[in-house]
């Protein structure tokens, strides 16, 4: 369970890091 958990956590961290926080994208800005 622990090895599997570490693998899954690492994968989730990589995916989370691969996303982008949109610069200049503000609610209501019409994006």
């Amino acid at each position, binding site marked *: *369970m622990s090895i*599997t*958990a570490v693998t*899954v956590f*690492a994968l989730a961290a990589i995916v*989370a890091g691969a*996303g982008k926080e949109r610069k200049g994208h503000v609610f*209501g800005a019409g994006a």
Partner: protein
Amino acid sequence: MPALLALFVRYRVKESEVWQKSREESWSGLGRAIVSHWKLFLYLTLLMTTMNFVSHGTQDMYPTFLERQWHFGPSQRSLMTGVSMVGAIVGSLVIGLFSDRYGRRRAMIVALLGGIAMAPLWAYAPSTALLVMGAFLIQFMVQGAWGIIPAHLSELSPDSVRGFMPGFAYQCGVLVASTVVYIEPVLAKTMGYA
């Protein structure tokens, strides 16, 4: 009371300005908006798949783990679940505040890496006290990362599909991650619960 609340919402609550400006007039318009953001949709689905693997992977089999490895009875198992959920609440508060100050991605990465650091304590605690600590800390990290998800999905979704994209991608991720229900007992059988 719910009926009165519905009436209050109907007559007193106004639609947001964002929706007024970006509303889709037809289903085809909504479809085109979604297709034009297909990469984002795939990313959100993948993100939700991995996040559901993390949360279900640390919760679904945990009572069984406590029962079979630690020989805990129902009251002890429910107490441990309560402790872990307190960890979840505290984690979502702390990591949520961290995300407001330092960014959603950074906070999620920190929380998930924190989860890796806590995994040995959570799974291989040498004493009951450390087991309790591990249960608290693993859910502190997991639900700390999860607490950011609603804001993150909404902020990543463009105005034109914000009502549809976060929820649909979320549920598609849940659908893909539903395989975890099969994977968990198979792994527990072959690799053990800890």
